[in-house]
């Protein structure tokens, strides 16, 4: 083992010499390093954008929802107060939901009506604001599906209100939402709507973790967690990361093939060395181990260098906001790079593994090459 480490170290140092094989080795090392760096940058970029999207999701809507398992009404009793006392890190907001219309500029737009206890004035979300060209102070007519009798027969219940605030819309919302105070809501939905409790986490608390720990819930109450609320989007993001990561990993594959060629050349160059080492009593198995270790060491060096360089570059690009984005088009003001520790270890591991795999064939060939071929070929 001592001899193996000694020979390995000297061969690695020997790669700094200006021989043909050393030049090819340098190219292999740089290619592996660049592959690792590209992968770190890509994963950091994806993580940056996905973190932005997750933050938006978190800011735009509830982090979990408690719903009746059947029917429209949640079970009676003080269970919600008990839940709130057990989970001080969470905020619970009870509301009722129904459907209706908003009439703006002569057009009736179907909307979701949310009756929120404690709300002081009417709020519309950004989807509705955009669709109906509504802003703060706009006068709107709210129409309820519950009819009232008039001399002309049953007509929709119609109430006027002024928009006090425009709030973010839930992710991927197709229908606009109007949030109304309880008294107004009672008039619009006299029969009451479908009850639900929206759950919000305090800042700094991960909604996926916090809502997963929620419980025990009373009979008849179902939980839709943060992940369930946003399952399609979160799954798409995960798939995107996986596929782009795999795509960029092809750079590492090409670099590993280059390393394979290089180690094959190195094994041919050192065939006299390995022959004389075997003549001196070194088993052929140790020759194979030497070349596998060389691949591992080269992969480790290139992987570590590339990963550190990628991390440094991603950090600098993110901190200096080097790549700005057009305002109003993207949620972020600049291209975000978030290198994470698991992704750095993943890239390092994949690089080392690719280099090790690339060394297997040359190592086997070096060990199986006839001893006399090396001794006579000199």
């Amino acid at each position, binding site marked *: 083992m*001592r001899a193996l480490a000694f020979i390995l170290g000297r*061969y690695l140092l020997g790669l700094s010499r200006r021989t043909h094989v050393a030049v090819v080795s340098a190219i292999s090392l740089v290619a592996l390093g660049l592959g690792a760096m590209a992968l770190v940058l890509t994963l950091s970029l994806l993580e940056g954008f996905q973190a932005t999207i997750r933050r938006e999701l978190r800011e735009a809507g509830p982090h979990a929802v408690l719903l009746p398992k059947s029917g429209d009404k949640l079970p009676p009793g003080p269970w919600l107060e008990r839940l709130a006392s057990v989970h001080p890190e969470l905020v619970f907001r009870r509301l009722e939901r129904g459907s209706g219309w908003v009439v703006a500029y002569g057009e009736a737009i179907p909307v979701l009506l949310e009756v929120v206890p404690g709300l002081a004035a009417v709020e519309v979300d950004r989807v509705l604001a955009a669709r109906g060209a509504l802003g703060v102070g706009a006068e709107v007519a709210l129409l309820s599906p519950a009819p009232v009798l008039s001399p002309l027969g049953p007509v929709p219940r119609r109430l006027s209100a002024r928009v006090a605030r425009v709030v973010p819309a839930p992710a991927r919302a197709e229908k606009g939402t109007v949030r109304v105070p309880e008294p107004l809501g009672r008039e619009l939905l006299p029969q009451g709507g479908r009850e639900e409790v929206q759950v919000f986490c305090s800042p700094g608390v991960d909604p996926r973790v916090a809502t997963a720990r929620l419980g025990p819930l009373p009979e008849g109450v179902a939980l839709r967690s943060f992940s369930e609320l946003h399952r399609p989007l979160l799954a798409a993001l995960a798939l995107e990361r996986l596929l782009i990561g795999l795509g960029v990993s092809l750079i590492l594959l090409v670099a590993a093939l280059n390393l394979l060629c290089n180690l094959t050349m190195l094994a041919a160059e050192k065939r006299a060395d390995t022959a004389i080492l075997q003549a001196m009593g070194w088993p052929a198995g140790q020759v194979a181990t030497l070349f596998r270790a060389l691949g591992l060491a080269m992969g480790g060096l290139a992987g570590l260098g590339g990963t550190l360089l990628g991390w440094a570059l991603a950090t600098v690009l993110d901190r200096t906001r080097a790549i700005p984005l057009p305002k109003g088009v993207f949620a972020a003001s600049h291209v975000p790079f978030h290198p994470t520790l698991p992704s750095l270890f993943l890239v390092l591991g994949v690089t080392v593994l690719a280099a090790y795999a690339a060394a297997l064939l040359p190592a086997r060939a070096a060990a199986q090459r006839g001893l006399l071929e090396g001794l006579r070929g000199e």
Partner: protein
Amino acid sequence: MSSVAVEARGLWKGYGEGERRVEVLRGFSLTVEQGELVAVVGPSGVGKSTLLYLLGLLDKPDAGEVWLFGQKVSELSPQERAGLRNRKLGFVFQAHLLLADFTVEENVAMPLLLRGERKAKALARAQELLAQVGIAHRRGHFPHELSGGEQQRAALARALACEPQLLLLDEPTGNLDTQAAERVFGLLLELVLNRALTGVIVTHNEALARRCHRVVHLGPSGETPC
């Protein structure tokens, strides 16, 4: 205990297949006593080096047996042969075959390092041997910085590092000019005879061969002992 160090019994060895097959050794036999230095001479292509590789456990005969120090070694496993080479055999080749990435001192210490000796101890032994072959002042140099004669001296020191019982030398002066060859051969004889080593030396140089205890002529039709 037998005084026979090396015994080759009816060795056959050929290369190639079918019509292209060439039989190099045809039932060759040789016995070398302990402490004896035998020179094998003959024209190119008669199998002198092949014989040395068979005796040195670097190759296997197609037929016949090789015995070293009373042990039949021609059918040992590769692992056992490697162990035996490290413990009992020393080699010097025509081309010095020094490792280019290592200093002369490290090259000489290499057999000991491969055996598992500590580096400091192996290097100390290498320095002793380099002093004995007269190139102690070159210990920190790399092989390419040495002359041909110095390289061969270093190869000789390396062959002696593990204190072998049998020294196998394949044209050790073949690449040297007359004067350098004379000096290296003189040194070789001195070291081998002082240590009472058993040796088999393959050479073209009959004048140098005659300075050994015995000369074996190997020709196309077989061996002719002198």
